């Protein structure tokens, strides 16, 4: 009975983590796009982005710890820490470990951001665009519920939302694109705004 509970916890926390990561990625893009309304100032986007990312860590911890201690799969700690070392679904689990490390790098550099230079922090933060798809594929490949329509629905919804957000970001010039213009032109642009 308790085994079953652990396994349910692993699955549930995995799904919640995916949804939270999706929201965090979209909020990050929203932040980069400088989107705001009078009712939704930018510090709200930034605050949710940060705090939901930290909450995701809690669910990820539940996801990983319950999976490791669950006697059914007998994963062991190594499987959770060393990519592709698990005998159980080696490849798909390995993807999860890689996504975890990418996320840890993003979180640590963000927490230590005042002590880093901006360019390094930003470079590491771009890992998010690798982390999110890897995490998604990890769930899609090995999730116990992957073939249920509700899980496919969640996966599909997450993909659609992130793809739309990325399209939004790539379809518009970066808010700082004027920096790449020659001085005279960038002045004109500022004035015409």
């Amino acid at each position, binding site marked *: 009975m308790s085994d079953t509970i652990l396994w349910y916890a692993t699955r549930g926390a995995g799904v919640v983590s995916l949804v939270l990561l999706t929201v965090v990625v979209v909020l990050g893009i929203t*932040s980069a796009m*400088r989107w705001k309304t009078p009712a939704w*100032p*930018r*510090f709200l986007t*930034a605050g949710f982005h940060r705090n939901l990312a930290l909450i995701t860590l809690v669910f990820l911890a539940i996801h990983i710890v319950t999976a490791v201690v669950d006697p059914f799969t007998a994963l062991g700690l190594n499987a959770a820490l060393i990519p592709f070392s698990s005998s159980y679904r080696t490849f798909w689990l390995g993807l999860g470990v890689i996504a975890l490390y990418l996320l840890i790098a993003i979180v640590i550099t963000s927490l230590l*951001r*005042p002590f880093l230079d*901006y360019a390094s922090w930003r470079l590491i933060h771009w890992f998010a665009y690798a982390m999110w798809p890897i995490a998604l594929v990890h769930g899609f490949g090995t999730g116990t519920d992957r073939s249920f329509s509700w899980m496919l629905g969640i996966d599909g919804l997450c993909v659609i939302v992130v793809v739309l957000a990325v399209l939004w970001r790539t379809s518009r010039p970066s*808010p*700082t694109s004027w920096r790449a213009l020659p001085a005279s032109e960038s002045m004109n642009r*500022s004035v015409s*705004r």
Partner: protein
Amino acid sequence: MAEQVAIDRIRCDGHGICAELLPEMISLDDWGYPIIKPSPIPLRLIEHAQRAVEACPVLALRMTRVSKAA
């Protein structure tokens, strides 16, 4: 010793979050770049100023110590 908000104008990208978090001391010009009151931060605003400094997406803000002259 009082503290003041200082800005690195070269780093600043005009995100404007500082003005949202510390409107008492920071307003935005027509291009979205901050105009900072050149006076020391009142004690009751220190915490908010700290938050604005931390929230700057490009780390362009900081607190500096100034002598009491102001």
